[in-house]
């Protein structure tokens, strides 16, 4: 088998570039889908056709590149920013009201599965939620526990975390040596717990905690049942209810890990905050 073009494979014909193989269909079945976000915004449209502008106006097969594509490349290359400002809204996109009516007529489908999955894995947020570390003032009581999987912390509320990984049945993220999570809790005493599960053995043994820019005294630090925890007292907390929890770790020794090139701080599966005072 060998590639035929960006989209298709053909049986191996031992043809090498600059020659091209014949197109021969492989035994194929149809199943599943892919959602293609061809153009989603003015900036996306500009980026896409600027990048494509160097390509010829004739495809490899000899056919002309289709007109909207070709004309959009020229448009973006030749017109000023002012002239093309708002092009997407005016000529490409439709209002949600129109699209809803098209969906009602069966011309298009409303499909939110991708959005739901991106929310589940913490890539997309579903406003107005603030996850995971929020305690509404009215519900605060001793014993209240908030928090959860790092998979659910949206990008805007975390800094210094590498991509999502899986270990056994659980998701986790490695932190860099400095990592931060945004929190929203009222004044009070709390127990901070970082769940590192079995990977906690890799933790280099140092954790410095700051809230906003204020260093926090290490109180009642324990590492038990794969949970690294310590107490945060109300005098440690900033005046504002919303602030950043900064974590600083020593780098994990990864010299014997083969291809690992990242500087790793700690493997975090979940973050919890237990309210100690009502």
């Amino acid at each position: 088998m060998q590639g035929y073009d960006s989209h298709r494979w053909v049986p191996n014909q031992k043809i090498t570039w600059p020659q091209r193989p014949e197109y021969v269909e492989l035994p194929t079945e149809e199943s599943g889908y892919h959602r293609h976000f061809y153009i989603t915004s003015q900036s996306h449209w500009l980026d896409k056709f600027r990048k494509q502008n160097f390509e010829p106006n004739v495809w490899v097969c000899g056919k002309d590149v289709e007109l909207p594509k070709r004309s959009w490349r020229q448009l973006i290359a030749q017109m000023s920013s002012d002239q093309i400002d708002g092009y997407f809204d005016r000529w490409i996109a439709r209002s949600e009201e129109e699209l809803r009516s098209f969906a009602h007529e069966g011309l298009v489908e409303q499909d939110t599965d991708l959005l739901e999955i991106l929310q589940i894995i913490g890539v997309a947020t579903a406003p107005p939620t603030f996850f995971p570390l929020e305690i509404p003032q009215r519900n605060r009581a001793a014993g209240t526990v908030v928090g959860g999987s790092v998979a659910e912390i949206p990008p805007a509320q975390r800094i210094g975390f590498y991509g999502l990984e899986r270990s056994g049945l659980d998701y986790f993220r490695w932190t860099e040596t400095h990592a931060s999570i945004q929190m929203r809790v009222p004044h009070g005493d709390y127990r901070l717990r970082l769940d590192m599960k079995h990977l906690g053995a890799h933790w280099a043994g140092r954790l410095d905690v700051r809230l906003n820019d204020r260093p926090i005294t290490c109180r009642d630090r324990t590492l038990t049942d794969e949970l690294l925890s310590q107490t945060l007292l109300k005098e440690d907390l900033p005046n504002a209810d919303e602030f950043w929890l900064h974590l600083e770790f020593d780098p994990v020794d990864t010299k014997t890990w083969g291809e690992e090139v990242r500087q790793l701080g700690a493997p975090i599966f979940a973050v919890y905050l237990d309210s100690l005072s009502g």
Partner: protein
Amino acid sequence: MQAIHSLFMMDSFTAARLPRLAMLTCVRNEAKWLPAFLEYHHAIGVERAYVYCDRCTDGSEAIARSYPWVQVFRIDAEQVARFSYISDIHCACMSHSLALARQEGFDWLMILDADEFACGNNPGATALDRALLLPMLIDAKPETVQIRLLTREVVPMRVPAGTPFWQQRYFFSPRRGSPGTLSIHAMISTIAGPIFLATVKGSRLCVRARTCKVTILIAGFLIRR
């Protein structure tokens, strides 16, 4: 988290017969897309991604490298200059990744752009259950060499600047059994007036990696790790 757990449950009980899936993508400055693209596909069953960074200057390469299950390859301007067509570069990357996938024992290899999000067609209560790719691959006929994933093409909605792409939620749905290339000119011109989207290839393919012989298309084409 319920949906994620259902994925794990499936993994743990059927691991012995689950096929292994890799994917490849060629990107040029796609930093805005890559985190969602990679994390989404990992969540629905992609075990390995081969990401070819074509002259990226926007941090795409660093983003891709932050995932340990992703292998990143850099394509520089000198290499690109040898080709007239981007599809020739893609072909070289396809053959290269097919060889890698075979070496690593993957059963299937899927090619996607960074603005494309594959999904299965499973019955399921949650979006994640419906999207999982491995059940679809388990069900493939033995004689099937490739699976065509039909395109659900976005119909763009007016949104405020800075709105993430995932807020777009209206799509054209293709019909099963349609030709490999689906022209959507007529459909869009019907509803959107005189301006319409470009013709879009009607499918993406997921090919069997294990049963194929590989031709490296371009002798001496250097893809650097």
